[in-house]
């Protein structure tokens, strides 16, 4: 009868049915979470999207919402994570006091609810903010705390080494800065931290009078930053190359690189919601 009405062999008909059932199983939507958690996750996702689009104000508001949702259900780890993200955006918006306040209690949290990775991340972020605002001593203290909590187990170890190198550069300790940066390069890291290490190495070498080596490291940093399409870093690399070429007496070439850097900076500034930031000392 099945064959007569459908034109299919009964076995084929049965298989189709089973296939349909299995597809229906795949198609079922994931189980819903409580409303507050869903709203917090949604705000977090939208904040990341806003951050990717360069809409810092929206990202700030959404990370804040996410943090408040998580705090309202007493979810310590998730609210600490949202606070770290909110602090990142606050720092980008120039609200450094707020950014530091948000991180204050996380690294020293004595409960076991917040993981050491999160506590170390908070301390690391504090170090970055202090370094950017020129408070080198406080940055060093925060970095030491991060290293101590982390105990070489964190995923951002290369970043911490680079921050250490930055602080050494700030203090004029070019040899230590170069050694730290070279250790990141030799141990390998993600492209963004690798580019940072190449740039720090180039700066240290330039300060130590090793101009040819500095040029090589700047070129490597430029290639990586172009892959990542980070305007402010590309401009910095180009300016660095121009400076080294100038020291080497290759004035005409130096001027070309300086003009390229200027062009990159100007174009980036004209983009809506974008701004370049001097990130190296």
């Amino acid at each position, binding site marked *: 009868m099945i064959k007569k009405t459908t034109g299919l062999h009964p076995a084929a008909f049965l298989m189709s049915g089973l296939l349909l059932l299995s597809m229906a199983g795949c198609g079922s939507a994931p189980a819903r979470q409580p409303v507050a958690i869903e709203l917090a996750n949604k705000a977090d*996702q939208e904040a990341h999207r806003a951050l990717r689009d360069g809409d810092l104000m929206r990202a700030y508001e959404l990370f804040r919402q996410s943090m408040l949702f998580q705090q309202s259900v007493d979810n310590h780890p998730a609210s600490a994570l949202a606070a770290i993200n909110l602090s990142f955006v606050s720092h980008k918006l120039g609200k450094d006091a707020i950014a530091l306040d948000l991180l204050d209690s996380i690294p020293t949290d004595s409960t076991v609810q917040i993981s050491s990775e999160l506590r170390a991340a908070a301390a690391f972020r504090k170090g970055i903010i202090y370094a950017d605002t020129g408070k080198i001593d406080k940055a060093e203290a925060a970095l030491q705390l991060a290293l101590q909590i982390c105990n070489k187990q964190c995923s951002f170890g290369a970043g911490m080494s680079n921050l250490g190198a930055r602080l050494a550069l700030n203090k004029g300790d070019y040899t230590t800065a170069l050694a730290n940066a070279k250790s990141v390069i030799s141990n390998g890291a993600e492209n963004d931290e690798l580019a940072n290490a190449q740039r720090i190495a180039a700066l240290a070498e330039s300060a130590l009078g090793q101009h040819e080596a500095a040029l090589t490291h700047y070129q490597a940093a430029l290639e990586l930053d172009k892959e990542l399409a980070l305007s402010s870093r590309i401009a910095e690399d180009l300016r660095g190359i121009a400076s080294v070429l100038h020291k080497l007496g290759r004035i005409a070439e130096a001027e070309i690189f300086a003009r390229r850097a200027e062009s990159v900076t100007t174009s980036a500034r004209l983009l809506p919601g974008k701004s370049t930031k001097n*990130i190296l000392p």
Partner: protein
Amino acid sequence: MKLLADKDERFKNLFVKISIFVLIAVVGVSLNLLFSGIKKGLFTPKSTIYFVAASGQDIKVGMSVKLSGFKIGSVSKLDLNSKAEAQAEMRIENDYLPLLREDAMVSLKKEGVIGDGVLEASRGSDDRPPLKAGAIVEFERGGGLEQIAVDLRDRLYPALDEINHLLKDANDPKGDVRQMLGNLRQFSAEMRGTRERIDHLLEQVDAGIVQDVRPALRSVKKSAEGIEEIVGKVNHDLPGLLNKLDTSMENLRHSSETIKSALDNSSPQLSGVMGEARGLMSDTRNLMDSASGSWPLNSMMRPPVQGMVRMDSHD
């Protein structure tokens, strides 16, 4: 011929057993029908009430009639009367009929922005006697977006006409506003001439040329006469101008009141529309969330980024 079943003990009294089984099934089905009928109000006594609408558009047989959000009946019949109007018959449950008064009305509304149409009954005045079976009640269409748009249009058009009229008056070269401005401009120009003459006179005085003072004074006199003439003209024209200005201002105030009243009357409906739109957006968002988490869309969409923002030692 004896049945084979008779030889088996189990088939003894087979007819009785089957009869009982069938009877139980029939009773079960009947009870089921009875209860569902009671639940759906099939056995609830109802009375017939009528209304007449200019058009039968959006009115359907079976459409619910609600009072304060509760279903009290439904449309049972829809016909064209001798005047080519739509005559609808409603069956209202007797329990609820006393709640409606003789001046009760039914209005056609929508449940939500894209919901089904319903007839919403209003009770009528408390001092009127209760509605009786067979009565005819008033009908109105309303509530929908289209109706709100038509209401707004009807109220805003006269106001806009008034404003247009005022603007035309202001732009008309022979209108009061332009005339007044022209007069003022002329007055100002003449005053400038007068001031120049006085300046000239003062220069002459400074030089101490007494013989020149007399003609200069004559000039001053002439200017003063000019001013006097202008002031007279302004005095003559000003009351009329002020009256016309008053009328214009009154028209403007009237227009503004019309617009305000239109907005006041529409704002409750607009806030309702906003609420419904917000609800619709929320439902759509829910639907999209659910759809994007389900196969096959979940395999096509990029997973959303969550968690910690990437740590960068330089940012």
